[in-house]
């Protein structure tokens, strides 16, 4: 729309422009100019000095179609019938484009200078892409800092926590009896996701931090071998990780819908920070947070990862850079969150690991952390045992 308005504005100025200035001679241009057709100015946007163009008003299959208005305005002007065919102006100042100017513009606007290419690789059509600088800045500065602070910060917090609170015990002591918390299928799904995540996380961190931490230690050849295997593992383990995310979502989403109890749990500081044991169903608010971070974050990381693993299959260079940005930032944040998850599930709390280890947790542990869930399970068990269809002990009749 604005382009049309601009063209019209030029057209209004065209008659005067076309008559008084038939191409201002530019520096180094010959004194005598070939007659420039009046319509040349009407085409707008082009400097008058640069007219190696035909006299035809329209019909040229160029990108800039002269509007019907162009002919309406220029048609009444009397054309001087000349004996010779109008020759295009000699190459005086070839004018645009200036490499420096285009590059500056592209850099400022975040655009690319691209054109036609005769090879099938479409990416090759980009002559200059200044956004590479932004991506470099992200990769070398932003990601390194965010990742470093997130991972080291989380480790520091956990270490401090361990020093202050030590290992959280089961307050009532072990009951000796256990209750099943996660069945085999749940545990398999969990460990498939977890083990692939650990390898994915380590090989990913290696790409960002390895050359500062590992490369000086083991030398370039060994580091390349590690990184190459890391890359291959990263590519292949993407698939079990994605499958794991889907499975975890399907089996646990039912118990992870946030509700009022979660607010109370968070106010009490959970069992982690506070001393109380607020009511909780199968998953408390902290576990729900881990669940949703895993499911939503994992989905985004997986999607951006598939964009990266099949380079340029669905997007161009800008899309690839964006995919890497999303993938990198979310991944380091997820690594930080999962460090907390690993801590509380192993070192941080006695009895917690059994839930994912054997699947059977101590009854007192379960009562303290998931009282409502235990009650539910026990009442279910009671109806099974004492209900109408309950199996009767032999000889009870």
């Amino acid at each position: 729309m604005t382009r049309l308005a601009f063209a019209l504005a030029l057209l209004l100025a065209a008659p005067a422009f076309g008559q008084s200035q038939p191409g201002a001679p530019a520096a180094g241009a010959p004194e005598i100019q070939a007659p420039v057709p009046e319509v040349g100015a009407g085409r707008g946007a082009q400097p008058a000095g640069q007219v190696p163009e035909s006299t035809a008003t329209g019909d040229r299959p160029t990108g800039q179609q002269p509007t019907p208005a162009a002919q309406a305005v220029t048609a009444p002007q009397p054309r001087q019938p000349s004996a010779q065919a109008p020759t295009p102006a000699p190459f005086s100042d070839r004018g645009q484009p200036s490499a420096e100017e285009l590059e500056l513009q592209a850099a400022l606007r975040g655009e690319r200078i691209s054109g036609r290419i005769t090879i099938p690789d479409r990416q090759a059509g980009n002559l200059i892409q200044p956004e590479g600088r932004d991506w470099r800045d992200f990769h070398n500065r932003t990601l390194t800092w965010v990742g470093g602070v997130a991972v080291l910060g989380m480790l520091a917090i956990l270490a401090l926590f361990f020093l202050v609170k030590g290992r959280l015990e089961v307050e009532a002591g072990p009951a000796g009896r256990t209750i099943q918390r996660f069945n085999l299928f749940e545990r398999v799904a969990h460990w498939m996701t977890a083990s692939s995540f650990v390898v994915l996380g380590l090989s990913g961190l290696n790409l960002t931090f390895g050359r500062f931490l590992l490369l000086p230690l083991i030398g370039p050849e060994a580091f390349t071998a590690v990184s190459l295997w890391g890359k291959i593992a990263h590519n292949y383990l993407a698939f079990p990780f994605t499958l794991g995310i889907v499975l975890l979502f399907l089996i646990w989403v039912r118990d992870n819908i946030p509700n009022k109890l979660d607010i109370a749990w968070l106010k009490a500081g959970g069992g982690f920070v506070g001393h109380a044991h607020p009511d909780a169903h199968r998953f408390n608010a902290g576990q729900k947070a881990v669940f949703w971070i895993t499911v939503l974050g994992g989905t985004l990381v997986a999607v951006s990862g598939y964009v990266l693993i099949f380079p340029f299959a669905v997007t161009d260079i800008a899309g690839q850079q964006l995919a890497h940005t999303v993938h990198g930032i979310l991944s380091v944040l997820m690594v930080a969150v999962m460090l907390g998850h690993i801590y509380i599930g192993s070192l941080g709390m006695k009895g917690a690991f059994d839930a994912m280890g054997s699947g059977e947790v101590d009854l007192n542990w379960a009562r303290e952390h998931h009282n409502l869930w235990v009650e539910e399970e026990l009442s279910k068990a009671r109806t099974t045992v004492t209900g109408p269809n309950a199996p009767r002990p032999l000889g009870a009749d």
Partner: protein
Amino acid sequence: MARMKFLCDSDRCIECNACVTACKNEHEVPWGINRRRVVTINDGRPGERSISMACMHCTDAPCAAVCPVSCFYTTADAIVLHDKDLCIGCGYCFYACPFGAPQYPRVGNFGGRGKMDKCTYCAGGPQQDNTIVEYTQYGSNRIAEGKLPLCAEMCSTKALLAGDGEMIATIYRERVQARGYGAGAWGWRTAYRETVTV
């Protein structure tokens, strides 16, 4: 020591692609790898220009800055080279490169990339100069033989200039002064943070 650069005079380039062919032939570059290419901007419109583009051997090269395994190095002539024995084919250099220079053979799993390949300024790689090993990995090493890159040497209109930055800038400057116009040195602002002032 010289500071080697490329300069493509787009007012002379006729898009004959001889530089591309010369490069492919000289280094026996595999199918699908294009160390050099010719891009035509404003195709079919006023201001159409063709520019031959390859690795510009940047000052403070972005590829080297982002490489996770630090496989890049810069020679005394300021030519940016890389070690294919260290490259893992992650593709980061392509994201960072302003000129789309890094190329990857499709050898890995999925859309995976093999070890990166790019213009070496006809200067081979870290292997012993002019050995079979070096030729197989990186192509011929004309710089070690005292010659300039073949793409520029073959250029029929002498649009593509290669050599010491000062010298080729002087040649270009003289051309522009003589003929009265010139689009400027493509990529120089981006690669070297400088331009050729006439």
